[in-house]
């Protein structure tokens, strides 16, 4: 923000204050900052829209996601099928709704699982340092030197393809970055004086790190969880495209997109792959907007 527009803003605030129109808001400052952020609000609205319609899928659509109708194969949008049907006559719109449930579950579940491991290890090891910290740090370094998709593919081959295996593998490959982020937060917090005071009282390291330090790092952690959710959803889609994701019987966003590998469908049946592609992009974008908004809201150095 240039200094001139900042000055104008301050002038406006001053006149409002002189007129007695300015009250101190009782709302939490972070919540206020978040709600002033247009992009974050748009993101939140989009996110809720997609989430709610997926959850309410049976109310919105009268079709079954896996009901095959060979009479109406690859029929274009219209005539009872809002977004047409796929190569074996399943209703695309319904599949996108139901597929969203699983894709979001994979994304959010993996992000939360990875956070549980990464954050708890990072909180404790980041505070106590020592052997545990250097061991986990080395391990995370090793895991992060694998290109993600290669590591995930290998693990899928070992564990076999299934929904739960995929989530487990995402958690297994996702925790190192959570660990590093939490650890770096802890390293800066542990230098603060109140930690010294707590240590002087003889409080145990588990209590200090989890009860007194972790709450001060919670902002960046939430940001990281949202951004990882978006990343895992994109990864699920990419893996499905490679034929290594959730088994094809289950509708997920990635599995619906998978048929676009067929050049004939790609060329002549845009409704099979384009709408679901747009939904994935919009959803990932909305989650990213929320994440960016959270980051700004949690950052005390930014004016709100």
């Amino acid at each position, binding site marked *: 923000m240039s200094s001139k527009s900042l000055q104008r803003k301050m002038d406006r605030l001053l006149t409002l204050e002189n007129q007695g129109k300015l009250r101190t808001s009782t709302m939490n400052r972070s919540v206020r900052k978040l709600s002033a952020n247009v992009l974050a609000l748009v993101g939140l609205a989009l996110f809720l829209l997609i989430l709610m319609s997926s959850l309410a899928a049976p109310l919105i659509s009268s079709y079954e996601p896996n009901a095959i109708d060979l009479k109406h194969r690859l029929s274009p949008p219209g005539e009872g099928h809002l977004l047409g049907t796929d190569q074996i006559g399943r209703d695309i719109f319904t599949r996108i709704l139901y597929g969203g449930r699983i894709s979001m579950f994979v994304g959010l579940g993996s992000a939360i699982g990875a956070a549980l491991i990464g954050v708890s290890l990072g909180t404790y090891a980041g505070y106590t340092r020592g052997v545990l910290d250097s061991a986990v740090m080395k391990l995370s370094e090793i895991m992060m030197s694998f290109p993600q998709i290669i590591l995930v593919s290998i693990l899928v081959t070992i564990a076999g393809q299934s929904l739960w295996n995929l989530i487990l593998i995402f958690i297994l490959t996702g925790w190192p970055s959570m660990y590093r982020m939490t650890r770096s937060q802890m390293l800066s917090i542990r230098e603060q004086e109140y930690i010294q005071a707590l240590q002087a009282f003889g409080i145990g390291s588990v209590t200090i790190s989890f009860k007194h330090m972790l709450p001060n790092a919670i902002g960046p952690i939430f940001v990281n969880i949202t951004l990882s959710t978006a990343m895992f959803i994109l990864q699920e889609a990419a893996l499905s495209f490679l034929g290594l994701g959730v088994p094809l019987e289950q509708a997920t966003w990635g599995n619906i997109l998978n048929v676009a590998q067929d050049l004939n469908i*790609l060329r002549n049946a845009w409704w099979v792959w384009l709408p679901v592609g747009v939904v994935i992009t919009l959803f990932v974008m909305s989650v990213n907007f929320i994440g960016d908004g959270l980051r700004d809201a949690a950052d005390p150095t930014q004016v709100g």
Partner: protein
Amino acid sequence: MIPFIIRKVLVLIPMLFVISFLIFLGIELMPGDAVDFMIPPDALATISQAELDVLRAELGLDDPFLARYGNWIGQVMKGDFGYSLQSGVSVRDLLAQKLPATIELSLAALVISTLLGSLLGVVSALNKGRLGDHVLTVAGMIGVAIPQFLFGLVMIVLFVFQMELLPVGGRMTPGNEAFFQRLDHLILPAIVLGLSMTAGVMRYSRASMLDSLSKEYIRTARSKGIPEWRVNLIHGLRVAMTPVAVLIGFRLPILIGGSVVIEQVFQWPGVGQMFVAAVRSQNTPVIMMVAFFSVSIVLTASILVDIATALLDPRVKLS
């Protein structure tokens, strides 16, 4: 400087051993062993279990785990990476055959994303808060959110099916194998892979440029009466681009991962496509060698980045 480099390389060696061990453990955990793959299912009926056991013993599959690992790593260090379970071709020959295609594609994408990303980032930073900045920021946000392969598919539909400008996939048409004759095959995958990585570079170089422009020496330069474009481009840009250059090293894992997906979309006959085919058919020697190879590249690159940073930035301590 020299001891610094030596120390870095010395850390790399045990790390590679640990990774090779993990990868070997991975082979062990995969279902089936070499004998299962060597004998076709219809021949299996005529072979007794005793004969299979003899074969396993001859191949050394009965040895304890650590002995087999020692054997394997010894062979790898001699340059013998094993044989593909599908074609029987040695993995080394396979890699040598597929690697040029992947390097060609990755290099093109790296050049596109670096040039375009830093250019757009700088333009964005110089127009901060204005329309151009907002447009670029939104474009970058879409770029980060769209699945890479979907972007590739949309480009295929647009440029191949609708406009019929470019060939649909592969690396060359038989008969036209010189570099300029097969350039039209390279354009689309390189642009897709390059553009999908541009958003990240753009965001980074915008931040870096803004940071550099807010420094004291920029104000000094302005107060000396140096023209604005000179301040921006000579004084601001030079400092801002150093971290962007270093970022190339950190983008390698993303580049390798991205090329796996993009090679699949465009049927580009590179290492990534070979890897996906190997994973689908559980071709363990190929999977493991590609994994080991890519990790080695990433680790080597990160050391090079450390060294480059130390050379470029006198503030980095070498201890």
